[in-house]
C-alpha cells in the first residue's frame, strides 16, 4: 500500500512544485532517539518516468517517522524536548567538526557518532563557529539515534560580543547568508535526527536574518492544522 503513482504534465523548460496526496500508514515503526527505542528507518524512493523516454530521474532517502517538539520552560528557562509525545532528558555533547582541515569521511563520522551513542548521549550540538554538518554526519545520527541541534554561522565572539567587539551586524552580505541557510535547510531537512535549528552560538543573528530564519523555518500552515488536531486528538484519545 505504500506505492503511489501520479500523472502530471510539465511544460517545456519549466520548473514546478508537486505535492503527492499523503500516504497513510497504520502504526508505523517510529524513530526514537538513542535510549528510548529503535531507530526505525524507511527507504523513500521517488522516480519520474517520461512518456516516450522512460525513467528520467530517481531519488532515495532514509526516513524516520517521529515528531519532535520543544519549548522554553517558563519555570527553569531551559528548553524542554518531547519526541513522539514523550518527554526526553537531553544528554548531549558539543560538536565542532571531525577535522580542522575538513578531511571528512564516512568512517570517521560513523566512529565518532557511534562513540557518542555508546556514551549514552541522545543529542549532539553543532557549534555555530564550525560547519553546517554534512549529510554523512546526519546519516549516522539517524542510524544511532543522536538528535542534532544545528547552529547557523554566527558566534558571540566574532559577531558583536567578542574582544574587540566586531561585526555587530554579522556578515557583510545578509542575502548571501540567507541563501546559504535556505540551501542548507533543503540539503538536511529530511533527516529524522535533525531536531533544532539555532541562529548562532551565544548570539542572536542580526534582526533581519533572525526574522527571516524564523519565518522560513516555521512549520507550514498545512501541517500546523494537522499538528493541532493530532495534539488534540492524541491528548484526548490517549
Amino acid at each position: 500500500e505504500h506505492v503511489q503513482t501520479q500523472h502530471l504534465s510539465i511544460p517545456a523548460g519549466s520548473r514546478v512544485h508537486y505535492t503527492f496526496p499523503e500516504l497513510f500508514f497504520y502504526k508505523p515503526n517510529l524513530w526514537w532517539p538513542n535510549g528510548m527505542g529503535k531507530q526505525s528507518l524507511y527507504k523513500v524512493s521517488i522516480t519520474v518516468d517520461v512518456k516516450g523516454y522512460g525513467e528520467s530521474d530517481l531519488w532515495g532517502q532514509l526516513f524516520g517517522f517521529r515528531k519532535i517538539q520543544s519549548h522554553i520552560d517558563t519555570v527553569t528557562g531551559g528548553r524542554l524536548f518531547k519526541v513522539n509525545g514523550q518527554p526526553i532528558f537531553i544528554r548531549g555533547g558539543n560538536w565542532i567538526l571531525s577535522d580542522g582541515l575538513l578531511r571528512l569521511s564516512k568512517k570517521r563520522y560513523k566512529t565518532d557518532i557511534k562513540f557518542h551513542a555508546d556514551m549514552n548521549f541522545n543529542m549532539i550540538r553543532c557549534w555555530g563557529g564550525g560547519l553546517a554538518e554534512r549529510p554523512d554526519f546526519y546519516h549516522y545520527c539517524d542510524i544511532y539515534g543522536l538528535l542534532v541541534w544545528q547552529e547557523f554561522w554566527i558566534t558571540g565572539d566574532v559577531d558583536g560580543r567578542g574582544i574587540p567587539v566586531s561585526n555587530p551586524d554579522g556578515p557583510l552580505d545578509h542575502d548571501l547568508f540567507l541563501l546559504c541557510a535556505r540551501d542548507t535547510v533543503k540539503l538536511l531537512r529530511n533527516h529524522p535526527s535533525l531536531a533544532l535549528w539555532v541562529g548562532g552560538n551565544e548570539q542572536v543573528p542580526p534582526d533581519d536574518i533572525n526574522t527571516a530564519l524564523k519565518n522560513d523555518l516555521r512549520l507550514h500552515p498545512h501541517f500546523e492544522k494537522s499538528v493541532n488536531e493530532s495534539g488534540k486528538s492524541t491528548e484526548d484519545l490517549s
Partner: protein
Amino acid sequence: MAAIGKTKLDSGWLAARSTEVSLSGIQLTTTHPPSIGTSPWMEAVVPGTVLATLVKNKVVPDPFYGLENESIIDIADSGREYYTFWFFTTFRCKLSGTQHLDLNFRAINYSADVYLNGHKTVLPKGMFRRHSLDVTDVVHPDGENLLAVLVYPPDNPGSIPPEGGQGGDHEIGKDVATQYVEGWDWICPIRDRNTGIWDEVSISVTGPVKIIDPHLVSTFFDNYKRVYLHTTTELENKSTQSAECSLNIQVTTELKGNFCLV
C-alpha cells in the same frame, strides 16, 4: 546511454598553486591538460582543502603536531593568491540524445571559476551552498572531459593578533563561512582558512525531467496510530517539449538481508 543517477568525482584530482601555473583555464581544459608528475601539479585531496592537499604531499608539515603550524605561512602574510589553487580532473560520460548531465559541487569555500572543455562558469561566493551546472551542451559524449576549478579563499581571511584569541581579528565573520579558522581556544589558526572543494563533487545523468530537493513531512493522529507522509518535490523539465510524467513514490522498510517489505 549513460545510467540515470549520480557518480562521484572523488579520485584522480590534481592541484597546483595558481601563481605557479601560467596556463589559462581554457588551455588547461583543451590543449594543455596537466598530468601528475609535471611540476607544479600534485595529487589533490578532493573533497578537501588546499592545506589538506599540501599536508598530504608533505609540502608543509601536519599543523596539528607540536608547533608545526608556526612554520606554515598564514594567508594574512602570504596574501590570498598564495592559497588560490587550481584543481583538475577528467571524467567520461556517454550521453544519449535526450539525456542531460549536471555537474554538482555540494560545497566550495569560498568561490570558484569552473572550466569544462574550455567553457567557463563562475561559482558565486558562500561556503555553505550547493552548485549544480547543466553541462549537457559542453561534455564530449564519447571522449574524455577535462575539468579545472580555480578556487579562491574567503574574501576576508583576517589576520591573527600576536595574542591569538577567539576568532583572531574576527574579519572572517564578514563572510558566510566557518569562523573557527582564525583560531580559537581549542584550535590553532588554519593557514588557508579551509579554502577548497571541501564537499562532494558529482555528475548526475537524467532524462528530460529532473527531481529536485524532495521534502518529506510526517503528521500523526490517534496517538501515533494514524500517520501520514506528505511529500513535495520540485521537478524541472529541461527539454523543449511538454513532458507527460508518471511520478512514483515507494516506501519500503529494509528487513534483514536482502528482503524488503513493500
